[in-house]
């Protein structure tokens, strides 16, 4: 697994864990905002959503705005 693949993998795990949250997309974005370092965020933003689950992709898209 390279660094980007690892981050996609982690984002998908976060999404799976927060699946039952009333606002899963918001909760995923909040987790990434609070706990990922700037380099991790930069790498996941550069990735074009490849391999991300729908909720994880939506959360990351919402953070890019």
């Amino acid at each position: 697994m390279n660094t980007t693949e690892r981050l996609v993998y982690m984002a998908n795990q976060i999404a799976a864990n927060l699946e039952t949250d009333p606002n899963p997309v918001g909760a995923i974005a909040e987790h990434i905002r609070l706990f990922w370092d700037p380099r991790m965020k930069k790498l996941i933003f550069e990735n074009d959503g490849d391999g991300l689950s729908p909720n994880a992709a939506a959360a990351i898209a919402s953070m890019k705005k």
Partner: protein
Amino acid sequence: MPKLSFFTADVFTDTRFGGNPLAVVMGGEALDSATMQAVAAEFNLSETTFVMPPTDPAHTARIRIFNRTAEMGFAGHPMVGTAFVLAKQRANLTDATFEISAGIVRVKIERDDCGTPIAATIVTPQPLSIGETVSVDVIAKVLRLDPNDVVSATHPPIMASNGNPYVIAELTSEALARCSPYIDVFKALYVQGEDILQSDPNTKHVSAGLVAMECVIVHDLFLNETANYAHIFLPGSTFLEKNGTFTNAERRIQPVRKVMSPMNGLEDWEVTQRLAQAMGLDWNYNHPSEIMDEVARLTPSFAGVSFDRLDEAGSLQWPVNDAAPDGSPIMHVDGFVRGKGKFVVTDYVPTDEKTGPRFPLLLTTGRILSHYNVGAQTRRTENVAWHPEDLLEIHPVDAEDRGVKTGDWIKLASRAGETTLRATVTDRVAPGVVYTTFHHAVTQANVVTTDYSDWATNCPEYKVTAVQISASNGPTDWQEEYEALSERSRRIETEIPAE
């Protein structure tokens, strides 16, 4: 020193002095590794090979490859060149099989009508494996280029290996001419009071990283396992030899007072300060209390902490500030920051490390009371009488399936690596699960554990590794190499003249 014959060859060319140069030394079995390295440095060619008798008589030869500074697992042009030299000597050699440290290399030799060897084709010892990508910024920095000079349209800069790892990056042709390597990324590591080689998962990954460093400084009480990779070792001071505080998981800040001068002359914080000063930083603390004063200025929850206050109170539990001048034995008394709390439903996210036909058992690792973590401290005490070695605990059913008895040497293998240790058959573990401790460096349980980690904290998955076990008659290659390295790194090479 024995007299050995050698040949020089130019590979990938039909012109003398063209191509890639190579020296081939025959009868390499007469030399030890250090001499081979010295010979390769003396030739000063990109690579030198040493030809030795094969360990398997069906093979052509065993070959070790050295560049000017290190041994290499595999390299292409030394294989082609060595095959060419041997083909000149052995008229019937058309398919050569070489044993090298990265595996087996098969070479097909082409000859012209007169039987003179003219070319050789090799099959790499390991299939191509693709590793981590490297960011464009890092490549640009290392080559002193602009990020725009690195092309990632075809593929991003990426690690790839078929025995010897490389980073492959595409540049514009114009940038290729202009680039000038400048390796300023992660040159050095300062490791204080932690034995990362033995404690981190996937030991081979950790050791490759340590080997890649130009300077590893280990600052520790003992010559721990990470110290095998250290260029500089700085002795640490024990809790009896220094002033400072320990803060425990109860948030309790406890003062520790020096009862004797450090045997090495300096307290740990002084060693770190000297290193910082040597690197040009203006650190001039006179006492750890000044460092604590700075922590208090910068950290709201430590605002009321000082060595004087600690001496007065004996110990303090943070937060210590205007609202809680004597510290906070209990936090969140009437509620949390957000109110009474928040209950959430979360789904269970299982690990992706899965058992299968090749690795049907689950390994879980842990500690026992008589050793502390990787045992750097406790293995040097009589505690070893209670726990002299790491044992693999296996359920009687799994043991019987595999013909394993208590006391047998077994090989424990996962997707990451393998090690050998002795088995103990017990129903303390469930069928399908095996257990071991990671206290002993000769076992190195973490050679077997993988890079998988927990999603929320990135904690390594020490408790779940898919493994298989089989009977074994000796240590693995890794264990043998590691033992040799360990012995070498602890040897004093130069006699110190008597005063």
